[in-house]
């Protein structure tokens, strides 16, 4: 148990505190708690997990105070903390072709490794989805192998192509759409991961496990042409 307590955030928010450190096991507790709190069907406007906090937002202080007790009780009820697994495990095709791997040389140079080593290392790990943030559907995945840990670009790129795979510090990510950003870009995936037409628009959810596998440019183009819907992607690439 990393849970430290519940604090107020202004007149209408609460912060569930899990300390100041970050690790996969802290995140697992955060994301399990997130599911437990979500299942309480509180009168909340938003429940936002991150590395070691969950922020819960209500319409006003009265509703906040009424719901705070329900959360406290849930946090004390340790029996229910053993949550059944509802998260998904993904196998995601990734094309590390030089057309997409805009910054792979930075990582090669920093760690004195070959392009193939970067690809093998990046696709060797089952990543954990810490949380979704920064922009709609953007997954913070981690941790990358130590030989891939690389700081953000000194000058952020103005326009990162949609579906790009990036590395920054110990995390890896996928940009759902074109965006400015400072992550080192090493490849691209062949489908969209955020779809506003879907009632649950984000492919990845906090707690999901994600593994990449390398595909050729022709295989990439082939998958790209299928234009999978989110539901089809779930069937095809997750278990």
């Amino acid at each position, binding site marked *: 148990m990393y849970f430290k307590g519940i*604090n*107020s*955030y*202004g*007149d*209408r*928010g609460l*912060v569930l505190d899990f300390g*100041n450190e*970050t690790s996969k096991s802290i995140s697992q507790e955060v994301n399990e708690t*997130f599911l437990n709190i979500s299942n309480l069907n509180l009168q909340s*406007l*938003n*429940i*936002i*997990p*991150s*590395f*070691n*906090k*969950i*922020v819960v*937002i209500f*319409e*006003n202080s009265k509703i906040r105070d009424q719901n705070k007790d329900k959360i406290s009780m849930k946090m004390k009820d340790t029996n229910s903390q053993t949550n059944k697994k509802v998260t998904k495990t993904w196998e995601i095709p990734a094309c590390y072709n030089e057309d997409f791997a805009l910054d792979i040389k930075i990582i090669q140079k920093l760690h004195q490794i070959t392009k193939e080593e970067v690809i093998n290392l990046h696709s060797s790990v089952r990543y954990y989805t810490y*949380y*979704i*943030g*920064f*922009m*709609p*559907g*953007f997954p913070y995945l981690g941790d990358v192998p130590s030989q891939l840990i690389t700081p953000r670009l000194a000058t952020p790129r103005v326009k990162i192509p949609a579906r790009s795979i990036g590395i920054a510090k110990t995390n890896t990510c996928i940009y759902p*759409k074109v965006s400015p950003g400072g992550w080192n870009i090493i490849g691209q995936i062949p489908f969209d991961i*955020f779809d*506003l037409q879907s009632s649950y*628009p*984000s492919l990845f*959810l*906090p707690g999901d496990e994600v593994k990449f596998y390398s595909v050729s440019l022709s295989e990439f183009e082939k998958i790209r042409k299928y234009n999978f819907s989110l539901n089809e992607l779930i069937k095809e690439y997750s278990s």
Partner: protein
Amino acid sequence: MNSIIITRAGTHSTIQDFGRFQYQHLGVSPSGAMDQRIITELQKIIPNHQNQFLEFAYVGPSIKVKEGSVKICVGGNCNMSIQKNNNSQLECQPYKSINLFEGDELIIHNTIDSVYGYIAFEHGLGLEPCLNSYSTDTKAGIGSINRPLNDEDIFYISKDVSSWDLISIPKPDLEKITNFKVYPGPQLQYFSDNTLQSFISGVFTITNQSDRMGIRLKGESLISSKSHDILSEGILPGSIQIPSDGQPIVLMRDIPCTGGYPKIAILNEIDISRISQLPPETKITFDLQTIY
């Protein structure tokens, strides 16, 4: 069928409602009307607004009826007039319903001593919701219309006006304040007593680098005694975050969903609406509430 065309889009006109909730954990900002007091008032005049309000800032839009007729009401403090289809000009006032017929054009010149104004349309604007809300987040490209309105945008309103009766309410008292009571933020302890004293006793000026995402203030630098870089965590509108240059940013409706700067304090909900109406160069102060 009734339709209207935007003949001049104005400075920054978007469709907004009371906000998009339950999606912030997927990276989707709440958005919604900057001044929610005004759309709350407009509901009294146009009850069947379908949550499709037009928000404008500074220079407002001009709207012409292409076909049929519409009933609308404008909220906020603004100059406006109606160019009738017979070329006569009509004066009109906020918070009074307006009937517009084919060829009539409503011209909203500008907001007065404020920033945002709103138009409510009876039966809405014929839009479909996006993630259960009509609000626009232009940066994320989310909304019924996922961009600011443009000249020549056309809206179709299939239902006819239910009654031509003119409805009005007294001009609401949207109290203008420049001293804001704030509650301690989650990282209040990142600032020394001296710095907190500067925050409370200092005067901050609203800069023109302010928009739907945040209001940037200029004043005495508030430097953290710990760090200006925290592990990203969920944030809510009204939070006052302090980046490493020490100049506060009041986060508004189109917030980034998580933030990595320490938050010294947070405004209460109604004060988000109040502060949104203060134009650049307005000087404001903060009063920290210790008990909460």
